[in-house]
């Protein structure tokens, strides 16, 4: 069990227990090994955020168990310390900013860890660097004066400064402009590669999921519909559509070409689609540039 980083065992969770019960998770079982980059995709209300909050003990299962690094999150002692191991970036995390300066805000977590001022300083600089910001440049500015994208990155740095071994991000890309999305996604990927931390990315965007993850978890109405690598999960476009999701753009493009009688194989990333299109082009006697 300890080799698995996060393990959900038959987890069910309901909101408003007692009155007007809403089932958010129904009998969810899932294993996320150490060092993996997993995306959890699903439409609004599919239980993604509830799943995310179970990862660091903000919520604990009504039924079933969640284990993080082999420890049961339902135990009070485990639950209280879990924030040190699992960093959870909530939806619109920029709402949690409160300190007078960017530096102090990012330092809030490390100070709660009782790090010394010097260690804190290093953790803050490092965290801001990971999200592509310079501590010297913006450390002394008020976080409220930053742009939306910068605020988001500062908030994520606030979690990274805890140097968690698992990072759970709930819709971190929502509301960012295309360049902001691309940059943040790239930084996440880099962080995963360099630091070897486990990343759980919650999103409803298949393109983002396809671009970065090793494995994909598809959720629908509180249940896990499919788990696996891209190729396996993106089997049926129609099924995904019924769940309020969509294949990645590249996959739709390739299917569209296949529908018009071109011989292309399946693919899920833009690079892959470009290769397939070039193949058609070459087969027709065109010259590759």
């Amino acid at each position, binding site marked *: 069990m300890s080799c698995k980083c996060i393990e959900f065992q038959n987890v069910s969770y309901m*909101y*408003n227990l*007692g*009155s*007007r019960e809403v089932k958010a998770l129904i009998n969810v079982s899932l294993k996320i090994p150490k060092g993996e980059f997993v995306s959890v995709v699903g439409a609004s209300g599919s239980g993604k955020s509830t799943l995310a*909050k179970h990862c*660091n003990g*903000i919520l604990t299962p009504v039924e079933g168990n969640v284990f993080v690094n082999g420890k049961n999150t339902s135990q009070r002692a485990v639950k*209280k310390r879990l*924030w*040190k191991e699992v*960093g*959870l970036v*909530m*939806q619109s*995390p920029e*709402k*949690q*900013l*409160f300190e007078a300066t960017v530096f102090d805000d990012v330092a*809030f*977590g490390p100070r*709660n*860890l009782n790090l010394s001022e010097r260690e804190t300083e290093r953790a803050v600089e490092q965290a801001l660097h990971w999200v592509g910001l310079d501590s010297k440049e913006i450390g002394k500015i008020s976080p*409220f004066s930053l742009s939306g994208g910068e605020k988001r990155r500062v908030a994520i740095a*606030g*979690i990274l400064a*805890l140097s968690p071994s698992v990072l759970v991000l709930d819709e971190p890309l929502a509301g960012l402009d295309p360049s902001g999305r691309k940059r943040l996604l790239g930084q996440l990927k880099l962080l995963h590669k360099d630091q070897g931390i486990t990343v759980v990315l919650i999103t409803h965007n298949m393109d983002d999921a396809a671009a970065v993850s090793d494995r994909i978890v598809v959720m629908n109405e509180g249940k896990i519909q499919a788990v696996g690598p891209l190729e396996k999960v993106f089997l049926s476009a129609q099924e995904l559509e019924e769940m309020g999701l969509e294949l990645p753009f590249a996959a739709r493009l390739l299917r569209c070409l296949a529908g018009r009688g071109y011989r292309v194989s399946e693919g899920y990333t833009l690079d892959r689609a470009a290769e397939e299109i070039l193949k058609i082009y070459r087969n027709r006697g065109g010259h590759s540039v």
Partner: protein
Amino acid sequence: MFEGITLGAYIPGDSLLHKFDPRVKIIGSLLLIAGTLLVSSPAGILIYSITALLLLVLSHLSWSRFFKGLRFIYVIVALSLIIQSFSVPGEVLWQVGSFNITREGIFSGALLSWRLLVIVILSSLVTYTTTSINLSAGLERMLRPLERLGLPVSQLAMMMGITISFIPLMLEEFQSVITAQQSRGAGFGSRNLIRQFKNLLPLLLPVVAGILRRADELSEAMEARCYRPGAHRSRMRELCLHSKDWTALAVTATMLAVVVLLEYKFLF
């Protein structure tokens, strides 16, 4: 932490109580509350409690949900019972330190907390069965005569309506900021008072900032839909009193009249 608190939140329904004119609900509940406060005999309070419970039945609200939503009130009710039983002089039953618990104290404390409970039930019934829009419409209509005195009635009603509908949103905001800061190690559950106080800052600042931002957005959205403060605004559903509304008013007014006659008969 805030799950299940529904104070001041409307619960949709189709009951008689839901259908009463908001003015009737406001005035009727005020009349009943006045009666509960004026009546001095336990029998009288009992009659008002039965009336309140009868209205609760008529509202078709779930009892468990209704009373769960009032759980903060119970603390106040219990406190008033305790304080009262210490502070009224009379026949001493027990001594706790330098305090005396008296028979008269317990009796008046019980009556007071009983009254409080009935009043809370009555007023919650109004907010549970009336949308904030309807509530402020009723208040606006009732206060309209004061407009001649220069009181900005429609603005006040709008402010009231917005305040009421923002309460659940604020609780949500609090909840989400609490979880976010907990993820960064803020210990809101800490027993240490100084630590708790220090922890308020990371909680209050984002929430206040969030509320200001929401207020800003709301005012822009209202202006975009041509809201002008003070301009005469008609309503989609103009209020209109039906026979059931007059009956309810008559019943509650009569109850109060009987109480006043019985309690203050020396006046006549």
